[in-house]
């Protein structure tokens, strides 16, 4: 056990799980935004239903995290990410290393939208881009892979990918996270790995819908493979490398999320298929399902660029335009089949 202290920002289910994994190798400082939550975690030693390892200290001060930790894992929903970074930035130095675990996108629209405004890639930021924009930290990475928080909490074997253009960030991530139950791989394609995590949530919602409608594994196999193709097309267009999508963070995470009832995005889809409305489904969730927002962003982008990602497009109709899940599925099934694989 080293004396160094590692930071985790966000005490949601994934943040807590990451803190627990890190606590096997080092001391951990876990930040929660809400002062009451901090007090509660301190007294119960339970965060989001998970017992905290004794090496974990909880805090409400971002300044303390920046001061005591050189490596920090921000794990907060994408909708709060930029705001968190803005508060955090004044305490950060160029020597800090940030490895985030957030699988969402940040959308930036101009204050006044000109009439001929067309959304493009420049309006979208991945979380690492938000970190670079808002702080002096340059050594940035992300953590992605089949890491369902509930399974991690139970100590089941799993693996993750640390992606960063900097080898030293990958090595730090490996050193801090690796344990007998947790394997860590490295990848230099930061954008690609971030996009894997982001885009797979779309397919996870679709998978939930398929299960909710009572269909079996043939349908799921179909969805996963076509879903992967769609992810690759979108991911490439957004600046990722194809190879990342067939790795642990791509297909690995996709298979796990698309078949797991513990996945939030899957659960949203499942509820929709059971006839609940979007608002009802979201209200029943404890934590953010990133996929809901991602679908909206990708749909806007695709429209502006004149491309048609079939699955995303149909999900958008189901989520935001009141299309019945059954109709959505039969629409997809009627769509003339294309060539199986044409990108390798």
């Amino acid at each position, binding site marked *: 056990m080293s004396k160094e202290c590692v930071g985790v920002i966000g005490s949601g289910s994934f943040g807590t799980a990451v803190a627990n994994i890190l606590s096997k190798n080092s001391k951990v400082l876990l930040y929660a935004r809400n002062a009451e939550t901090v007090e509660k975690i301190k007294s119960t030693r339970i965060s989001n239903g998970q017992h905290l390892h004794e090496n974990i200290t909880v805090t409400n001060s971002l300044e303390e995290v920046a001061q005591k930790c050189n490596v920090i894992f921000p794990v907060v929903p994408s909708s709060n990410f930029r705001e968190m970074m803005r508060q955090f930035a004044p305490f950060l130095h160029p*020597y800090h290393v940030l490895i985030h675990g957030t699988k969402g996108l940040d959308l930036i629209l101009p204050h006044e939208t000109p009439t001929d405004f067309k959304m493009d890639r420049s309006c979208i930021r991945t979380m690492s881009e938000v970190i670079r924009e808002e702080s*002096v930290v*340059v050594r940035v990475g992300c953590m992605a892979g089949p890491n369902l928080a509930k399974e991690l909490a139970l100590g089941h074997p799993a693996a993750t990918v640390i992606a960063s253009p900097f080898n*030293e960030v990958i090595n730090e991530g490996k050193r801090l996270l690796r344990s007998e139950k947790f394997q860590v791989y490295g990848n230099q394609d930061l954008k690609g790995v971030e996009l894997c995590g982001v885009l797979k949530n779309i397919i996870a919602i679709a998978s939930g819908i398929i299960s909710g409608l009572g269909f079996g594994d043939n349908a799921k196999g179909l969805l996963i493979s076509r879903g992967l193709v769609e992810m690759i097309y979108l991911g490439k267009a957004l600046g990722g490398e194809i190879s990342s999508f067939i790795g642990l963070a791509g297909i690995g995470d996709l298979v796990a999320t698309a078949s797991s009832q513990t996945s939030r995005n899957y659960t949203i889809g499942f509820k929709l298929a059971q006839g609940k409305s979007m608002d009802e489904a979201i209200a029943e969730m404890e934590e953010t399902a990133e996929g809901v927002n991602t679908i909206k962003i990708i749909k806007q982008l695709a429209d502006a660029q004149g491309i048609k990602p079939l699955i995303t497009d149909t999900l958008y109709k189901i989520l935001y335009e009141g299309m019945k899940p059954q109709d959505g599925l039969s629409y997809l099934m009627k769509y003339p089949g294309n060539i199986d694989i044409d990108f390798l």
Partner: protein
Amino acid sequence: MKPIGKDYVKKKYDQVVPGGIDEWPVVSLSNNRDAFIKEVTAESIKRIKKLTPKRSSLIEEIETTLFREKLRVKRNPWAVDPPDEADFLQSIKDRLLEISTNDDKEDIDETLEDILSEIIERYASEIAGNFKKSRYRMARSIVTFGFARLLNASRARGFWSIFSTRYSLQDKIHITGEVEELRTLAKKGTIIMVPTHFSNLDSILIGWVISALGLPAFIYGAGLNLFNIKIFAYFMESLGAYKVDRRKKNLLYLETLKSYSSLAIQKGCHSLFFPGGTRSRSGQIEKRLKLGLLSTAIEAQRVNYQKGKRDGLHKIFIVPVTLNYNFVLEAPSLIREYLRLKGQERYYVENDEYSTSYKIFAFLLKFFTKGSDISVSIGRGLDVLGNYVDTDGNSYDKSGRQIDTQEYFTKDGKIISHDQQREDEYTRMLSDRIVEEFHRINKVFASHLVAFVAFEMLQKKFNKLDLYNFLRIPEEDQIIPYEEFKTVFQTVLRRVHEMYNKGEVSVSPYLTGDPDKIIAHGLANVGMYHAKRPLIKNKKGDIYTQDLNLLFYYHNRLVGYNLEKYV
């Protein structure tokens, strides 16, 4: 917006280094030339050994070098090459042969060491500059005096005006931007100036700018091919040039070159890199920079920190500079090359339009007597990570918080470590920042804007054609009615002003006021001395081009600002 008027200041600057030329780092470098070459050799050997940790890999690297060098001597010899090159290579070959039959490991290592240091010392002495005070003074006065005479003779009327002092070079070459900051930073640390590169004239131009601003001479890498020409060699050497041979792409040479640059920067020599590596063929502002030399700036900064040299005199500042021309003499051949390369023609030989001293002289004469004004924009100083610095050399983040550049080289804010992969990544980031700054300080001339608008309008009309077919459209299709042109021009102009107000680009003072006048000014200046004009008015007052390729070239200057949307 009302006309801004003159945007440059004409003044005489004091010398930045008060002690005079003897205090310049570049002078002490050339006074100790032999010792410096030894230092470079030792450093290069250290690097190469680190890159080839096994004996076999070192042998392989030397063999590759030998093979390529022999090929070069045979296929592409230059006048400047030393006559004993073939013999030297043969002696290396013989010794390598000996090694392959030898079993004694110690013996082999010894021979390898010898071979390596011989090759590298040869490279290092070829690269090393030969700055001479007297020659520098001489060259400087030739440039300033001679050109000022030419200028006065051409601007005013009558023979006697050759002795007039009304116009100085500063009327011809407008220096704008962060001049005072540059001068202050040059006292506080080491400057790496990174200019855009459009014309062979650039190095002389920049050399003059540096001296006119009272800065000590900068060292810079100049293509060895330019040293084929005696008069060029004379000027370049006296201005502080060291030699870069683009034919030699072997590891040994490249590492020697990097050691040379890195050590010179560590010794406080202000340096100049053309980070694009070569003249922009397309006429676009460089998008991708050469990372090799740029990485030496980051390395030198880290080494300085490791040696405990905290900011003060040893901080390294990157200063982007753009050179803005209405007219680039080489444009026709540059754009032809660009199109040929892009068109994937297999065989292409770099032609050199400066093959004789006469041609250069003719060009300079034309340039100084006729060519329209040039503007040089000096950008804000950056640290090696691309953060802006203030006049004290302190770095600031985007929100104005002061940061310590040394912390980029540590994991905990304290212990500085050398991590090559990290520095490679930093080099890439710095290169992106420089490109960003180029676009910001680039000065939009009326001539660039008319070319841009005209080309985009024509291309939009033929949007079904690819570039190559488009460039071959018949002459009668290359005409744009004036009123139509003016409408689009005004839209794009408005956008340029918007960007200017946001600090995203810089504009020439001619770009304000009556649009008809701006267009007229642009048309009169765009590529004005080419035999075929890129853009001109016909008798009906409509606009047409005599050379679509050239129009493409001048248009490219404004690519990368997303202005296409407004056409």
